[in-house]
């Protein structure tokens, strides 16, 4: 039932009977077009990031600079605190993910496997928080942060990011998955007389591990992409995550598009690497959800 291994060739054979060639061609064309469109911005980012500063303005009119300068990255890395921004981003995003998972796994469990009062209302309330814009939330959230003396610290950002961006997602994904775990499994354990706490950590969490990983990735990205909170709370450079740092390059006077695009690529690469590394695990994680 759970991921019964089947020889790969067998699957291919069976699937080719299921899917018509027209269907496959349509898929290739659609995916091809979307991926081409996706590559264009990346290409432009790379090309602009290589323009030497002296010829920045005229080179912007062309798709590829006449004299690409790879050393731009060294100049940028040296002159601007990119490494520091990157570290901030990692600390905040990882912190938010850990907090959201620690709090969200029990909550997801409670909302899917126990008879908690007002289950649907709670689930809806978690979702309802997402109906507010973060740029509006921050006006008032700043008051909470200053009462707790968290305005100029990683904790404040981790707290808000995990509470607003990460947790609702984590709860929904985990509750959604745990709900699909068959009743028989739980009943089998019931006979052993396990408490619900033991059931959560010994049975449900291991089964849900791949999905928890997916939820973790979602949480990480959500925090990594934050704009409004970091813009207001990370006012000093020592706390600025990378996207805010890059945004701050749009200083009041003349934009250095080449460094801006170089830093943008740096801000993108960690998530891309994460996707590449977790690619198989992410999909197999979702595959494990095939049990119904």
């Amino acid at each position, binding site marked *: 039932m759970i991921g019964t291994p089947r020889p790969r060739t067998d699957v291919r054979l069976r699937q080719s009977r299921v899917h018509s060639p027209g269907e496959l061609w349509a898929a290739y064309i659609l995916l091809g077009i979307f991926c081409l469109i996706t590559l264009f911005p990346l290409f432009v980012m790379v090309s602009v990031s290589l323009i030497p500063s002296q010829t920045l303005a005229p080179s912007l009119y062309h798709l590829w600079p006449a004299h690409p300068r790879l050393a731009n990255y060294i100049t940028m890395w040296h002159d601007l605190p990119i490494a520091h921004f990157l570290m901030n981003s990692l600390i905040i995003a990882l912190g938010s993910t850990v907090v959201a998972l620690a709090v969200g796994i029990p909550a997801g469990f409670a909302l899917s496997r126990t008879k908690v009062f007002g289950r649907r209302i709670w689930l809806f309330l978690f979702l309802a928080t997402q109906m507010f814009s973060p740029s509006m939330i921050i006006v008032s959230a700043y008051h909470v942060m200053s009462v707790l003396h968290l305005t100029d610290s990683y904790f404040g950002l981790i707290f808000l990011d995990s509470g607003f961006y990460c947790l609702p997602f984590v709860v929904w994904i985990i509750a959604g998955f745990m709900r699909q775990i068959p009743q028989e499994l739980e009943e089998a354990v019931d006979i052993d007389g396990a408490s619900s706490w033991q059931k959560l950590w010994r049975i449900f969490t291991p089964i849900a591990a791949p999905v928890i990983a997916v939820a973790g990735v979602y949480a990480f990205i959500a925090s990594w992409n934050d704009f409004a909170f970091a813009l207001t709370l990370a006012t000093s450079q020592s706390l600025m995550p990378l996207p805010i740092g890059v945004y701050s390059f749009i200083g009041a006077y003349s*934009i250095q598009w080449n460094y801006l695009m170089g830093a943008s690529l740096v801000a993108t690469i960690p998530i891309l690497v994460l996707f590449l590394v977790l690619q198989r695990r992410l999909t197999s994680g979702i595959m494990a959800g095939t049990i119904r």
Partner: protein
Amino acid sequence: MAAGLAVMLAGCGTAASTSASAKNHPVTITFDAMEYSAAANKFFPKFAQEFEKLHPNIKVKVRVINWAAGQQVLNTEIGGGNPPDVAIIGTRWLPGYVKDGLIQPLTSFMTPSFAHEFYSAALNSVKYNGVQYSLPEAMSVRLLIYNKNLFKKAGIAGPPKTWTQLAADAIAIHKKTGQSGYALVGSQVETSLDYWYTMWGFGGNILKGTKGTANSPADVKALQFLVNLIHSGGTQPSVTASTRSGLEPVFASGKIGMMIDGPWLVPLALANKIPIGVANIPSQPGVAAANPAITDSFVMFKNSHEKASWEFAKFMFTKSVRAYFDKAEGMLPTMSLDGSEPYFRNSPEFSPYLKALAGSTRFEPVVPGFQSVSLAYTNAVEAAYSGALSPQAALNQAEPKVTAALKK
């Protein structure tokens, strides 16, 4: 003599006792600086460190805040009961903060000799209701920068003196070279300021007393003039998509004939080997010419650390700090002592601007609610540029908003 000695001794006594008590209780002041460019993240903390070396009892906590978010961050800090001790702010924000009783007047701290070190135009530009609430920094005059290559190709002898002439030149440049004649900002916050350059040249004003004059005949004429200029091909295409910082690289690559901007555009153009000239901003016959200027404000918030804050303020307005800042950011000196430096007098980008500073200049009025005034103008001007409303209708809509903002 004896009395004099007593005063001196007493003076020493207080000085010694304050420094002694300060030694026991080191003071930490917070400084909200604005991020003029990426370099600001390095030099503001460096200034603070140098200051701390000179004043071991005072610690300075520096926050370098992005300009775009600057006011939001300050307001949330103030709203959260956590304002900084000293800060650099947009002069536009000053009256609002003063009205809410947040800003420490500097009258009791400023000595005549200290005040004398500033250019008086700069110092006056950051007064509100005649009171010195702040020190001027990061001054920039705006002048007309023109591309000599394009002028030559279009057969134009020199920079225009009137707006009518500017329009003729701009259209000639476009017809003969195919490039754009005049760079007009029509998107985001600086739309209003860029329009005021023309409006002032037509004899218009933003306000009269406490009443907005957005739809005065001179205003309407100026806006109509710019709309006509757009339609006759005298400006760059897509005016309502053009921000100032977006137009600068275009001018610097030689594709625009004229642009009104600050000194920082000059090195940008020279780097691309574009020969440029710098001239006063045109005005219509019969209207007194004045070059628009902008300053930012260095303020002290009211609190218990006034003495330490003032020490820091004085340090920030010493020659070495000012010269470093102005050079790094391409700003004009606000104090005579650094303005006399050969660096400023001899550089191609600064010298015409310094000269302009000696002539007649015009600053935005320092009044409360000016942010809303500017926003009302920006929306009206954008509506006229994009053809959504006629200049008269657009300015008629703006006028009550301006007056209401001034009343707030």
